[in-house]
């Protein structure tokens, strides 16, 4: 701790005012928009009630950006896009231009600099991702690498709008699941109870806190080698990893036991059907960097089954609602097992309590 200089007291300024940075046409027409259309994949046209237009060109980024990449995006904005941009919640960048004639040169520039233009309408947008090995303290896998590999695979689907409806994919690199609900979600799934590092427990652990964290009461205080530690009832443990963030000795990650699972049918939007959680379809896929080919294969299978079979405007979950789960597992050639039967609190609500059966 240095105490040489007097510390600076922070200005508690909070959330910055967006109007300081907003494109002037957006500012001028704030809350006065009338309608929009998509001119082509990646390009939106919004019309205000005063008859003024703004054109948006959306492009993919790597989210984890070095200052050179950011400055390059600034250069592009200065030269082609009136010096402004914004980001979407999925880390796509959006350049706004008031002049229709700027769309083509801007699009060409972005494409030539390696930023794919797309992600609008019925496309596969950028995968929302978490931190992973790059920066989190509990990750079972990387996030940026999984996303990069999958976006390479789905590049064409990002720059085109050929899906039945939008496809939103998420990833999570531990079972905390920072990524949200997705049409397809690729999440870490632990398969073995934590291995306890007893020396660490004796030194650092707040035992009551971690005992309380376990959702199935599988952790008990214990004396190991004459020192206070913990033990796990491995029959009860559901390998959720909840004990690991508060207690680093609960080593949940193993280079073979940390696996990946794929889930489908989650959605946040209220359009047509209510928001839904995604549901498990495949587990136990190997954590296989740098390209996770087994995950890629499953995602591809599901994505194209959806593309080929869903009707216009059906999101993944809505398509499955129509055709039914038996058909979904049949079309995708994936296995249905006892692990697909929910046994958590409220599980019976997820069962079929009717004679609605599809044959």
């Amino acid at each position, binding site marked *: 701790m240095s105490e040489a200089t007097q510390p600076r007291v922070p200005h508690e300024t909070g959330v910055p005012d967006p109007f300081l940075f907003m494109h002037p046409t957006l500012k001028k027409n704030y809350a006065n928009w009338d309608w929009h259309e998509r001119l082509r994949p990646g390009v939106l046209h919004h019309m205000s009630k005063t008859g003024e237009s703004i054109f948006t060109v959306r492009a993919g980024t790597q989210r984890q950006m070095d200052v050179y990449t950011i400055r390059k995006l600034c250069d592009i904005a200065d030269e082609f896009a009136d010096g402004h941009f914004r980001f979407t919640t999925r880390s796509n960048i959006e350049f706004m231009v008031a002049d229709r004639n700027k769309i083509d040169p801007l699009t060409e520039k972005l494409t030539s600099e390696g930023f794919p233009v797309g992600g609008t309408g019925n496309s596969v947008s950028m995968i929302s991702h978490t931190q992973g090995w790059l920066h989190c303290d509990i990750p079972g896998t990387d996030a940026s690498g999984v996303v990069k590999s999958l976006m390479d695979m789905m590049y064409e689907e990002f720059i085109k709008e050929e899906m039945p409806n939008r496809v939103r994919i998420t990833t999570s690199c531990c079972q905390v699941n920072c990524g949200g609900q997705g049409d397809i979600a690729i999440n870490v799934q632990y398969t073995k109870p934590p291995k306890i590092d007893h020396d660490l427990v004796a030194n650092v652990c707040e035992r009551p806190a971690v005992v309380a964290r376990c959702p199935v009461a599988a952790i008990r205080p214990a004396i190991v080698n004459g020192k206070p530690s913990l033990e796990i009832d491995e029959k009860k443990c559901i390998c959720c990893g909840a004990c690991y963030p508060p207690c680093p000795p609960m080593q949940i990650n193993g280079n073979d036991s940390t696996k990946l699972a794929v889930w489908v049918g989650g959605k946040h939007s209220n359009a047509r059907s209510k928001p839904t959680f995604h549901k498990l379809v495949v587990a136990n896929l190997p954590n296989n*960097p740098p390209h996770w080919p087994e995950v890629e294969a499953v995602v591809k299978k599901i994505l194209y089954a959806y593309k080929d079979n869903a009707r216009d405007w059906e999101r993944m979950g809505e398509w499955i609602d129509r055709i039914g789960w038996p058909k979904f597992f049949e079309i995708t050639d994936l296995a249905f097992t006892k692990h697909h039967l929910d046994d958590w609190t409220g599980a019976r609500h997820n069962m079929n309590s009717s004679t609605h059966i599809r044959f």
Partner: protein
Amino acid sequence: MPKSNGSANGNGASSSNNNKGKAKQHATPILDKLEGGPWPSFVTGLKRLRDSQGKQYAPMMNDLLGQLEHSYEEKLGFWKGGVVSVYGYGGGIIPRFSQVAEKFPESKEFHTLRVMPPAGFHYDTKIMRQLCDIWEEHGSGLIAFHGQTGNIMFQGATTENTQKAFDALNEIGFDLGGAGPCLRTGMSCVGAARCEMSNFDEQRALRDIINEYLDEMHRPAMPYKFKFKFSGCPNDCVNAVQRADFAVIGTWRDDMKVNQDEVKAYVEKVGRKYMIDSVITNCPTRALSLNDDNTLEVDNGSCVRCMHCLNVMPKALSPGDDKGATILIGGKRSLKVGDLMGTVIVPFFKLQNDEDYEKLVVFAGEVMEFFSDNALEHERIGETMDRIGLPAFLEAMGIDPDPNMVKHPRTSSYVRTDDFTEEAEKYFERKKHKKAKETEVTAAAE
């Protein structure tokens, strides 16, 4: 630090020539494979930083790449947490110390500053370049736009530089977001700035609430995290319903606006069959009907404002004029009871004038106060609501029950109903008052 002109946009390819008395460049054969393919590569970006001759962060990024490659080899993470903060604040920094620092000493401290972005993620190039310059001087040069909660994540500062970086960012108007058991950074959709579906001023609501309760963010003292998210309409572009403890989702109460000429034009373009299959029969509450002359009939009383028909025909259909938001409380991700969607607590919160926004800020404060006073340690408000039951939660918040809060009334008969009659009387009393108020308003308007 020697200063070299870093304008060289060195494109990816590794330069073998920055050994200036430093540890040698780590080979990254696995990560290198993530440089191919058409999608922008974060690895190429990391290497650009590593290869920035003379920059203070180049050695740090060399070791960072080394550690990341090590993770890819071992399939394990190697960061641990700790305690790092800036003067005056208890949160906002995510400390990261390397567990393999003996191999990768330059990146042994690699902390993240969670910084709140301008609401709606708007930037101009001037401010963006300033952010880059600051992070180039005090940090690693690596920034994420944005984290899932909505922060700009400045990743990679030493413990010593954390304060310097924050001071510089703070001087140009940026403040730390939340980390730890506290009010977290909020997020709002683009909304009114560029979307005709918007039903309230999302960025204003976000700033009014967060900026009023900054103390709860900067000095963590809550049972656990508390997140706000603001979507201008039920399309919910920022995923508020499930990822916010307090979700504000725009909606309207009066009839949607229909431009019948545009409806006709649309039907003419796509044909009656497509119109019926894709719009009419997709309405979840059967509120739409296509007339023989290709105009649209909307049963606004049955419409649940799902947005589908507006999304398909944005030129023809728009939200009404009586605007506001639905407030859902208690959404969260897996830990530890499983995922929860928010529950409707306020079916319609009018958001049109200053007074409405002030009321929203007060209400948000009351909910956080309830959370602070009643949640168990490490319990999200959705779990508290489940533990005590919705009736008790509503009573604590002074909110009357409303059929919009449920999918359907209870199905379990185990309930004590001896004051059912009194409760029913209260309901009719409220209904009478509401009616009286409405006639008053209509009378005043006439």
